[in-house]
């Protein structure tokens, strides 16, 4: 037996999935978080059963790719497969549309009425027993986020069955209206504070200032937490605890030799220099854990809160007009924001865009103009000492490129882009446990992904230098690198490693002793010229090989142009 979790977008399917399987899919308060189905397993009556989390759909007549996936999963069901129809108790009428469609398809279902706790606050009262009698399928009220009722749901899964309820397709909404009238009563209540805040967030006179404030506070908070962790925790730990240990190891390894240089790297004035030493256990650990991880944590702390609160779709409304100039619509801001953490989930999130044209534009400007947290952390670390204004030039340039390229692509790529059409969820105070769990999942994922690749990067850099490959490549590319970009020819080493990991690439710039202007140019180039291998593989999967080549061509050409321009413009 397999169980499918089906329901409208953003009703709690993934939250239920996490609860039932103990798994760790990302849950957020906006439609479109789940872009592909996920499998897990749970025990029902002592047996292991497969549970599938499916993207949300309002109807069995799909209007976008996510909905198509949901419908395909349903079509692919076998004898004995069962559907948990997750319904938003606070939106019963709209939710029953899918329910009745499932009933008509003779699917064995059990209804889970989620957000049961919210019904009281909204003055909604539902007679569950009556609903069960009318629909002729088991109905269980639950609160996925706290877990209430979920056990009861699992106990009753075996009762899931096709309903004997019949209705005329043309009278479907009439039928839904009848059902709702019979089981639901609404008592009037005043606008809650969150509802008033919601209205203020979308009305232009209050909404635009709010968006500016939110973005400003986001930036400040990420800086504060990131720098704080680096300055008060990570650097002290590395400098006071790890360095002495590494020096002892260095002495033990004979202070020289291939193994020593690989593991410890080069000592600078007899000391470990995490920027320049480039050993596996020195730079290789410092970059991901001390330079980048604090910012990754800070970024996901703020982003996860905004996601769970429900602000992102409202931000999408605010930026929609701007996005249309780029051939996209407001919701495209979500993949862009995710891309600021890591480009991979950003690219995956572009699946919420309906047309191929939009996805191509979004993915291209994301890979070129949106720097990931790892790159940002290293750039801030390196350029920060020259003042935040210099760092600002890097961000400013990337932002301008993002816009200009978007406008250009909008004018050149064939086709039209559809308008925004998205449900806006109510503001919800994030549940602390799920919020922390989500941040923890993202951090763990970063450490698992980043550390091995950074170590690999450091290893490869050492090998390339020892074999003289970087020096050879430097001579080869010198004309472009030095004359057009104004960088020393050895900087090409950073470009080579940048394909593996961008943070290691920035790290390679440290021993070159670049001026602030050169650092700015190098940072911008590294962000733009080509995606890292992780993003590259994701892009090939999402775009297909041909479009990927087009995209890559755009990246390389635009980075040379922008780098060259910066070389001329900056003093």
């Amino acid at each position, binding site marked *: 037996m397999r169980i499918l979790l089906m329901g409208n977008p953003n009703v709690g399917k993934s939250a239920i999935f996490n609860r039932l399987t103990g798994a760790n899919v990302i849950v957020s308060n906006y439609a479109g978080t789940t872009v592909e189905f996920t499998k897990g397993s749970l025990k029902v009556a002592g047996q292991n059963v497969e549970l599938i989390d499916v993207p949300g759909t*309002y*109807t069995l*007549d799909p*209007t976008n790719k996510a909905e198509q996936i949901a419908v395909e999963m349903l079509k692919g069901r076998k004898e004995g497969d069962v559907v948990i129809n997750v319904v938003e108790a*606070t*939106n019963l*009428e*709209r939710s029953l*549309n899918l329910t009745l469609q499932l009933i008509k398809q003779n699917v064995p279902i059990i209804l889970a009425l989620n957000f049961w706790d919210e019904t009281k606050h*909204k003055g909604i009262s539902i007679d569950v027993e009556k609903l069960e009698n009318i629909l002729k399928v088991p109905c269980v009220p639950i609160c996925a986020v706290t877990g209430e009722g979920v056990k009861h749901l699992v106990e009753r899964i075996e009762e899931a069955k096709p309903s004997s309820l019949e209705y005329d397709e043309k009278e479907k*909404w009439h039928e*839904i209206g009848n059902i709702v009238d019979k089981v639901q009563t609404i008592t009037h209540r005043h606008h809650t504070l969150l509802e008033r805040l*919601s*209205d203020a967030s*979308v*009305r*232009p006179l209050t*909404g635009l200032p709010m968006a500016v404030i939110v973005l400003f506070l986001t930036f400040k908070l990420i800086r504060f937490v990131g720098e704080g962790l680096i300055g008060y925790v990570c650097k002290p730990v590395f400098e006071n605890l790890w360095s002495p240990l590494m020096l002892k190891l260095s002495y033990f390894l004979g202070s020289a030799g291939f193994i020593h240089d690989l593991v410890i790297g080069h000592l600078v004035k007899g000391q470990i220099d995490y920027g320049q030493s480039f050993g596996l256990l020195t730079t290789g650990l410092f970059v991901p854990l001390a330079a980048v991880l604090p910012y990754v944590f800070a970024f996901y702390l703020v982003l996860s809160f905004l996601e769970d609160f429900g602000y992102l*779709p409202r931000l*999408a*409304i*605010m930026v*929609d*007009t701007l996005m249309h100039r780029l051939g996209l*619509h*407001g919701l495209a801001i979500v993949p862009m924001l995710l891309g600021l953490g890591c480009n991979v989930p950003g690219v995956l999130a572009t699946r919420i865009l309906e047309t191929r044209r939009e996805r191509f534009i979004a993915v291209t400007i994301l890979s070129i103009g949106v720097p990931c947290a790892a790159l940002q952390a290293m750039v801030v670390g390196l350029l920060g000492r020259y003042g935040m204004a210099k760092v600002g030039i890097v961000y400013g340039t990337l932002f301008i490129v993002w816009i200009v390229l978007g406008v250009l692509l909008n004018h050149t790529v064939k086709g039209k882009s*559809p*308008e*925004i*059409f*998205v*449900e*806006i*969820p*109510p503001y919800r105070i994030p549940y602390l446990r799920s919020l922390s769990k989500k941040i923890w999942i993202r951090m763990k994922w970063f450490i698992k992904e980043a550390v091995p690749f950074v170590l690999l990067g450091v290893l490869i850099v050492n090998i390339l230098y020892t074999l003289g490959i970087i020096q050879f490549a430097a001579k080869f590319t010198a004309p472009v690198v030095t004359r057009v970009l104004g960088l020393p020819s050895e900087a090409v080493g950073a470009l080579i490693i940048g394909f593996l990991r961008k943070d290691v690439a920035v790290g390679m710039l440290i021993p070159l002793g670049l001026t602030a202007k050169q650092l700015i140019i190098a940072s911008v180039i590294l962000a733009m010229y080509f995606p890292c291998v992780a993003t590259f593989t994701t892009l090939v999967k999402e775009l297909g090989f041909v479009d990927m080549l087009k995209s890559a061509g755009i990246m390389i050409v635009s980075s040379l142009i922008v780098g060259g321009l910066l070389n001329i413009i900056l003093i």
Partner: protein
Amino acid sequence: MNKSNSSKKPIESMGKRISLARMRAGQKGNIIKISGGCGVVSRLEALGIREGREIKKISEQWMRGPVLLQHGNTQLALGFGLASKVLVEITGEYR
């Protein structure tokens, strides 16, 4: 009815037929017709938004930006062009 605070004239608007795009934020009304290709009609219908239903216009944005409407407990943001396809008969103000 509280007329002392309103700078507009609500009573004159009642019964007026106007698109969701051109309605004023704060007004509510019943949907008369949804024109346009099958796409718009069926997407709205999937959410239960159809002829005869009451919707409220919560907000609009500058420069023909998206319109936010409320139907029951569902809030939906629609592009301006899509909103122009929804014809509404005003029944009053809700705030």
